[in-house]
């Protein structure tokens, strides 16, 4: 049994910021536990930038940032939390700048800012098209500076609490295969997103499997707004790999098979820089109505054309995008347009928290994509996710560090470790009549079909039934690799089981929300319905194992809901 004051699960931007914050307080024993080494986490794949009303390029204010965010969220975001985030944004950007983060600069030496979707002004600070990468590296560097302890390549299995307070968690050390109980006065979950559920077409890393929300669900901790899944408009044709919104921010065009900039029909004012939900629906509509392209493999797509930006700008501002397009599509954006289609990208929903990252269990926090404050509501604006993770990572880290002082550890029953050992043993002894890769494909198909970009009752119901069927069939999975050392077969099976659990909540939320709002577009309820659904869905698993959905009010301060036009 290991013992810490605070354990942070996940080493992306949220986890590392929380760790830095706790390291400021001397004498606390803190560890960051992650299934990958720090800097491998998916924060590093964020390309385009991070929003803050610095006003370096055009006059701006946190209030305007907050308004854009709330409007982008289709008014589902909690406005007190949004205000807090936007207020803190300029300071936290400068804090990271002072840590050495290599932001791109204006000729006068200030931090450069570029236009992004759904924003009224160029507000997105960036480092070429590798903003998340340099942010993650910088935070890791500072964690080394302040002596943060890391448990690398440990996979969290379960949360342990006494119904009121957190007692710790169980995890498997992937290198040794040992299952360990870890006692802690506070646990901060920063495990990232879960859109790997849409396995066959997503921008996410292979490990974005909803481990945090799944553990929370099993521990009786509620999830919020799970029906909202963001499809990023520009994923590469074959792989769904991300092409940053910065490409459109720098002036890229979306072009259909008729050679037309079709966004003029959907967002005549903002054009390509409308919010992501709207642009993704526009692209899918073009494809459905026969104005898309199709390749010999049957992939359907439209073009993202950057050629008019010119070689110099592409090399300077979008070097990584150019390389990705060359390596993965065989297309050089300087010479040819990039074939793209929307790709499952971001989970607005997550573990239900307040604006300090606190959950219903005292001492248990969730930050970043695995949590839901909510600052993104029904649709997140580009450039707000990097901001979300650092702001709420910092706040939760601070809050946890303060809260554990003078606190005693909660009793951690040994049986919790035994239970996990039993669970894993049962996977080794599985029947093996079902196959992991097959079930994963079926889950992906069911989710894309039923709770993808466009949804309706019949399709969602079918998806929900299918997910429940897969959940049953998953009991017959078998882990064939019986080694203790680095058993990736065990890991991928555990990840899949986590995805299935989370998938069910997405479908259930989608079924119950009988309106269209942000990324949740129901063809049978095409309008937003503030009277009945201006509220958060909250799903929790009862003692009987069944999911229960309730509703929770949205916090509205300054911005009254209005029609969302771009």
């Amino acid at each position, binding site marked *: 049994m290991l013992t810490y004051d605070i354990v942070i699960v996940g080493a992306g931007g949220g986890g590392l910021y929380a760790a830095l914050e706790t390291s400021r307080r001397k004498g606390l024993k803190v560890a960051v536990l992650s299934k990958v080494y720090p800097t491998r986490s*998916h924060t590093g794949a964020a390309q385009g930038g991070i929003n803050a009303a610095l006003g370096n390029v055009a006059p701006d204010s946190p209030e305007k940032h907050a308004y854009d965010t709330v409007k982008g969220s289709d008014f589902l975001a909690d406005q007190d939390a949004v205000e807090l985030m936007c207020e803190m944004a300029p300071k936290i950007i400068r804090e990271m700048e002072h840590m050495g983060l290599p932001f791109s600069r204006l000729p*006068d030496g200030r931090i450069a800012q570029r236009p992004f979707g759904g924003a009224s002004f160029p507000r997105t600070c960036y480092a070429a098209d590798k903003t998340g990468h*340099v942010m993650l590296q910088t935070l890791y560097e500072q964690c080394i*500076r302040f002596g943060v302890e890391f448990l690398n390549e440990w996979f969290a299995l379960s949360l342990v609490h006494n119904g009121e307070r957190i007692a710790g968690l169980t995890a498997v050390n992937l290198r040794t295969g040992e299952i360990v109980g870890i006692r802690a006065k506070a646990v901060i979950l920063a495990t990232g997103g879960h859109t790997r559920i849409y396995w066959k077409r997503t921008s996410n890393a292979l490990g974005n499997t909803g481990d945090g929300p799944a553990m929370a669900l099993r521990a009786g901790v509620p999830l919020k707004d799970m029906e909202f899944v963001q499809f990023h408009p520009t994923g590469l044709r074959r792989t769904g790999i991300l092409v940053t919104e910065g490409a459109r921010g720098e002036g890229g065009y979306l072009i259909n098979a008729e050679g037309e900039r079709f966004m003029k029909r959907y967002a005549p004012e903002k054009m390509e820089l409308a919010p992501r939900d709207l642009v993704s629906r526009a692209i899918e509509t073009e494809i459905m109505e026969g104005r898309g392209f199709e390749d010999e493999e049957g992939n359907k797509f439209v073009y993202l054309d950057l050629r008019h930006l010119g070689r110099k700008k592409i090399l300077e501002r979008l070097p990584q995008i150019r390389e990705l397009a060359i390596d993965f599509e*065989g297309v050089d954006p300087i010479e040819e347009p990039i074939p793209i289609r929307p790709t499952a990208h971001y989970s607005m929903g997550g573990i239900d928290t307040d604006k300090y990252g606190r959950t219903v269990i005292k001492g248990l926090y969730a930050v970043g994509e695995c949590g839901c404050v909510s600052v993104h509501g029904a649709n997140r604006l580009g450039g707000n996710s990097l901001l979300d993770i650092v702001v709420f990572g910092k706040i939760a880290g601070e809050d946890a560090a303060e809260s554990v002082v003078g606190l005693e550890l909660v009793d951690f029953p040994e049986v919790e470790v035994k239970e996990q050992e039993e669970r894993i043993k049962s996977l080794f002894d599985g029947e093996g009549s079902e196959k992991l890769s097959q079930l994963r494909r079926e889950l992906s198909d069911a989710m894309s079909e039923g709770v993808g970009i466009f949804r309706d009752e019949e399709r969602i119901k079918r998806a929900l039934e299918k997910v429940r069927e897969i959940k049953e069939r998953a009991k017959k999975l078998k882990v064939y690799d019986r080694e203790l050392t680095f058993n990736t077969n065990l890991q991928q099976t555990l990840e899949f089981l986590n995805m299935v659990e989370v998938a069910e909540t997405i479908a259930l939320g989608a079924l119950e929300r009988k309106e269209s709002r942000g990324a949740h577009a129901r063809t049978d309820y095409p309008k937003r319905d503030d009277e009945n659904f201006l509220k958060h869905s909250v799903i929790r698993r009862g003692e009987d194992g069944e999911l229960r959905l309730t509703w929770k009010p949205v916090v509205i301060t300054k911005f009254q809901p209005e029609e969302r036009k771009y």
Partner: protein
Amino acid sequence: MEKKEVVFRIKRFNPKRDSEPYYQEYRITVPKGMTILEALHVIKDEIDPTLAFRSFCRSAICGSCAVKVNGFPKLACKTQVFSELDKFGTDTLTLEPLDNMEVIRDLIVDWDKPLKKMEEMKPYLIPDPSVVPSTLDEETRVYPEELKKYDRFTDCILCTSCFSACTAAQMDEGYGGPFQLARVYRFAVDKRDALKEERAKIGYAYDMWNCVRCEKCADVCPKHVGPVDGIMRLRGLSIKVGLKDNPGARHVFAFYKSILESGLLNEVLLPLRAKGIKGVLENLPVGIKMILKGKAHSPIMRPIAEHENLVKVMKAAMEVE
């Protein structure tokens, strides 16, 4: 669509179970466009769930999946199977774990050694209070040309490909390593940093002069960072901060002096100038052999034609630097 039957010959080893590594062959059908990483997943999903390798982002930014493909470190996720087959004119690709690190299992190596080394070398900005504002109401002014000095070196994704290929790391346990030293340089030229050029002393302590400039690190870097360039510049900085009295620095000065004198490299005087009498003694056996074979030149060398112009070019180049 074009498809090929491909044999993947994969080096396997579980130190807890196997007495030594062995190769296992997997034959799969690969469509055009498939990456090495996708092929590895096909093998794991459809043939052998026990095969162990790391992968995460699959878009060349997380640095998890570097392996050796026919002997060369590559990110599996951004390497096309077909292009490797074409390059080697084969239908068999050999996949092995990276070098210079212990194998944990199959293609998974232990990153702790190179990362620990980096951690010791202060790989973080220590803000200079005379440059970095003391309040969060202000950002440091960094001009685009100042950013350019280190921008490229921030592209490193810690995939350890360069460490795997590094000749010096292989020979010298005390050597800092290519990505590690490049990161030292990155901070040494960041005006926000409190240590600045003094960081070159860290490079010195971590044997940066042992880099043999084979440039393999630059060849294998999937992000085109070119660690060796950082190491060379860090050496320059070390001389600037006064670390002149060591074989490495003297070697550079000997080169410089020799070219300045004649435009030619005076190899006979080089050991003496770089390492003194010790250097002469060390090189004596080789020297005698060279003299006997008629390969040694006279210690007095006549300047080349156009020598004056060469000196002008050198001076101009130094001004630019």
